């Protein structure tokens, strides 16, 4: 299934968050969206997923959803957004409960999602007992359990420490390779962008527009190899040059009040 954003613009009161964005994410493709703070990345993702009504423009999907898909456009959140009063199992089951599934179908799906994210032994644990990395795994399991056609990820790793981020990135890649899900992935992290993206879309600072798009041709599995270290470093440096000045300006903006 692919995702098509055309002519998207959005304002919050007087503030123009997004000026005009056209973006298509092809079926099975992973597009990484980077840009300075406040440039409208989260806004764009909210619009893509139907959580925000765009000021202008259209959001459409095309193509077939995978078999058993219950929620074509599914989010993974930066702050995990787990219900603290539900166990891991309960959190993963949440998204299934309002669908007409038999109890055994439901249990099977939940179990498969927990297995995929390595959470099986934690099924009955409450979120407070888990580390940040484990919590985001629950977030991933909850997304996977509905067999999404398109994953929308808003800085899913940025609340984690660097080592956990490393561990999760590897797991995420493995899941993607298996499920071949279309993904729109927002991050600030150039290393993440370079590791995960088929294409990297760079947004300008507010009001957000698409400034540039870089395709990464190396297969994802090969990017870690020592012989590609220089190429990857060069890619990151290019991305950094595209973004550095805008990031510097964005950092120094003072909120009034």
């Amino acid at each position, binding site marked *: 299934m692919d995702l098509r954003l055309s002519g998207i613009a959005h304002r919050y009161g007087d503030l123009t968050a997004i000026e005009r964005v056209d973006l298509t994410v092809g079926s099975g493709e992973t597009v990484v969206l980077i840009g300075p703070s406040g440039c409208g990345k989260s806004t764009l993702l909210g619009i893509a997923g139907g959580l925000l009504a765009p000021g202008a423009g259209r959001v459409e999907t095309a193509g077939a959803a995978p078999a058993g898909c219950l*929620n074509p456009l*599914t989010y993974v959140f930066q*702050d995990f*957004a787990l*219900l603290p*009063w539900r166990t891991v199992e309960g959190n993963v089951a949440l998204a299934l409960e*309002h669908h007409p599934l038999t109890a055994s179908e439901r249990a099977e799906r939940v179990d498969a999602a927990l297995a995929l994210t390595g959470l099986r032994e934690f099924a009955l644990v*409450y*979120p407070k007992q888990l580390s940040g990395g484990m919590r985001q795994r629950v977030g991933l399991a909850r997304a996977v359990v*509905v067999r999404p056609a398109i994953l929308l990820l808003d800085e899913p790793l940025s609340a984690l420490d660097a080592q956990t981020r490393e561990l999760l990135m590897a797991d995420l890649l493995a899941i993607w390779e298996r499920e071949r899900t279309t993904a729109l992935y927002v991050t600030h992290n150039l290393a993440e962008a370079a590791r995960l993206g088929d294409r990297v879309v760079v947004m300008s600072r507010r009001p957000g527009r698409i400034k540039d798009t870089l395709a990464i041709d190396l297969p994802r599995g090969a990017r870690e190899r020592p012989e590609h270290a220089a190429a990857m470093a060069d890619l990151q440096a290019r991305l950094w040059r595209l973004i550095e000045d805008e990031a510097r300006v964005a950092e120094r903006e003072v909120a009034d009040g």
Partner: protein
Amino acid sequence: MAESAPRPVAFRGGGFQPSPRRWAPWLAFAAILGLWQAASAAGMLPSLFMPSPVEIGRALGSLAASGDLGRHLGASLYRIGLGWTLGAAAGLAVGLAMGLWSMARAVGIPVVSALFPIPKIALLPLFILWFGIGEPSKVATIALGTFFPTVVSAFGAVDNVPRNLIRMAQSFGLPVAEIVRKVVLPGALPGVLSGFRISASIALILVVAAEMIGAEFGVGAYILLTGNLMQIDRLLAGVVVLSLLGLAIGAILGRVEAWLLRWR
């Protein structure tokens, strides 16, 4: 400064982290009661003005021995229980509505803030007119007193349910009723429970006002009676009963809370 002489780094942390001292409260109570008793024994506190702990204890003992304590407690607990249940249930319904719907909130906030600070004893004559002098007026006093704080806390509790959880539920396409049931209500529970703590204290405080209206039995009625008879030792015994009741209710709510919020 000698280059080579290592100096130890001085400790400058610690403190500002009150540590529990299990014995301290008991000791404090014992000390206060002891001093008080000593002052009474030494004649520094005239027993008319301030009876000694022993006198109060004796009054409490004879109240318990006569069997009246049970009757007073029973009558008051019935009123508190019923009044609190009605007030808290109605308050919860209104508060949740105010938390969920803009319209209910826009209307509710100013009405609540205008009515909340009205002293309940001011309304006793009205309650007599509306509800008579039997149980209904007493229950209504307590119910009204617990209604407003419950509204405020329930409404605040819904407000404090993290919006990201609601957005998450929406992103999975949960219907509104499911979102309310599975996200908003459990998320509001901690706030609602702490509101219950407050409204339970208020219910206790109001039992005296409520029992000003022709009550024969009840801890509040006992306090009023002994106050009128200037039996200060018995009055304070009644106050001690209320105080212990407050501690007991607090402890019970603490248990309930710990169980319902074990996920925290």
